[in-house]
């Protein structure tokens, strides 16, 4: 129990079921996992093994049926909608498979808008947004509209949007699924850099071998259970300097 203080994320016997006709599906069936600050971890496993469900709960978008999940000292299962929103706002960045940029806003505004929810001066906002766009190497596209970007660039904007608040945790569900190899590596390199420089914890859910090559911890889920949880030597992204 005392130990959990050193973890950003602790889950204990996490169960999430979904009703399915008369029976129920165990999307998660007793998952106990801990994550420390600065991890670069990935959930792998076949389709339907519970990866997205796990990220959902850790990201305070969903609640467990049983068991507990503590994120940044907050018990997910006890949070109200508003408290959950606040936790996400403060501590968690999301990167989705599709980029989900807001089409009417510029790149700059897409990154800025998550900061609008925080009390922050316009100046400070501007600095942070430009910083985030530098990280993903899109500072020169600040005024572009999402429709003018390639898929890779769009996903980099999404990464900038997730990191602009410098959250301790970033959750990425299949972030490379819509990208070609070059752009996938590009994004992953960026993430590794952020992980190293900001100490941001990354947790992926993925099938993508390209992503898996970058992981330092590989957690295999199978039928809602942790089948394997191993520290691995990343094949890529280790010593690559920009």
């Amino acid at each position, binding site marked *: 129990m005392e130990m959990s203080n050193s973890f950003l994320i602790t889950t204990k016997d996490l169960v999430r079921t979904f009703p399915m006709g008369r029976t129920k599906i165990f999307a998660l069936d007793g998952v106990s996992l801990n994550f420390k600050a600065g991890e670069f971890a990935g959930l792998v496993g076949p389709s339907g093994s519970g990866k*997205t469900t796990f990220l*959902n709960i850790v990201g305070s978008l969903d609640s467990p049926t049983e068991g507990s999940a503590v994120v940044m000292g907050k018990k997910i299962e006890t949070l109200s*909608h508003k408290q959950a*929103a606040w936790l*996400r706002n403060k501590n968690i960045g999301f990167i989705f498979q599709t980029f989900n940029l807001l089409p009417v806003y510029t790149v700059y505004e897409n990154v800025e808008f998550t900061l609008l929810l925080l009390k922050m001066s316009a100046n400070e906002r501007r600095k942070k947004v430009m910083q985030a766009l530098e990280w993903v190497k899109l500072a020169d596209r600040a005024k572009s509209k999402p429709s003018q970007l390639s898929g890779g660039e769009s996903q980099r904007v999404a990464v900038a949007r997730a990191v602009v608040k410098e959250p301790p945790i970033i959750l990425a569900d299949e972030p490379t699924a819509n990208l070609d190899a070059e752009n996938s590596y590009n994004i992953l390199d960026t993430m590794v850099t952020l992980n190293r420089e900001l100490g941001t914890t990354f947790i992926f859910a993925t099938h993508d071998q390209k992503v898996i090559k970058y992981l330092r911890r590989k957690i295999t889920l199978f039928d809602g259970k942790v089948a394997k949880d191993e520290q691995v030597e990343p094949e890529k992204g280790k010593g690559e300097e920009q």
Partner: protein
Amino acid sequence: MIKFLLKGIIRDRSRSLFPVITVVLGVSLTVLGYSYFNGVMTSWMQTSAKFEAGHMKIMSRAYAENADQTPNDLAFIGVENLLADFKKDFPELLVAPRIRFGGLFDIPDELGETKAQGPIIGLAVDLFSEESPEKDMLNLENAVVRGRMPQKYGEILISDEFARRLNVLPGQTSTLIGSTMYGNMAVVNFTVVGTLRFGVLAMDRGTIIADLADIQEALDMKDAAGEILVFFNDFVYREEAADRITETFNEKYSDKDDEFSPVMVTFYDQGGMADFMGMVSTFQGVLIFSFIAVMSIVLWNAGLMGTLRRYGEIGVRLAVGEAKGHLYRSMILESLMIGVIGTILGTVLGLGFAYFLQSKGINLGNMMQSSNMVINEIIRAKVTPVSYVIGFVPGLLATLLGTSISGLGIYKRQTSQLMKELEV
């Protein structure tokens, strides 16, 4: 945040165009409708006051009881003395003693045989005294279509439409057959010197305008008048002042026990006036309410379509940690901005039309063919300060209502589904 929302509204036309158009339409129609009703009211009030009711009216108590039948046998006697006193008490008011009378109008041929005949409604007013306000008030000089104004006793004006029907030309002699104050038959000859068109249907059907003294003589009504109309000297009706004057007057001159003593009533106290005013205000209320209702429903649907179309945006915003309440309020704020923009545009548009109809007017003569209302055929809109702000009521209320309902959908979104939804 406001800037962020505004940018969204301005750049995403499908977000703003349809709601703005709805608001513009509703608001401009409200502004126009309101201003036009104002015009109807004002026109009707002015015309009624001039031709019928005055701002205040003095009658004998007995006459007042049955005023709608213009019972001249109950007319007030002693006009001269009363008015002499009255002018001392209320020097700033204008007075116009009148007699309304009915009768048969007969046009003889050279041999004195009846050539044409028709019933008339007559209005006897003081045409010749210096201080009489009648000529100006009834705008007689402009109303003369053929012929000229009466210049001496025995000369009358008749409505042009009636003259054409009876084939009367200015200069012709005619006979009025009526009854005296005491119930005897009165037969008097007049010379028709001009024909009239007021643009007020009730007055243009079959009216003659004669001099008061002539009619007093003809109908045996010396020093008597059915009605003494009293006006504020700027011709603007002021209800409170009218009430006060009426009270003062009645206290001094009226005697409850003497049915031939004079009594004063205000414009509103006369038959039907208050009812009509009430009807028009109700109508205005219904108009604004129905615009609010229709616009709300349209905007509600637009809002629903908007939340569907912006499913992704709402999802992302929830995912990055915007609380549902905050999102809901920002949607309402956004729609209020649309409401304000639409209301301003709609007010400008509505005022444009209203000003146009204020200078041009619409001829409602055909609609009022059989109406006895004393009101101009051409009715103009009347823009008042309220016209400038009235649109904000439906404009803002409807956007607020529409979005508050449609926006509730946000609360149905389950954050647990966001990842899956955002993956498509």
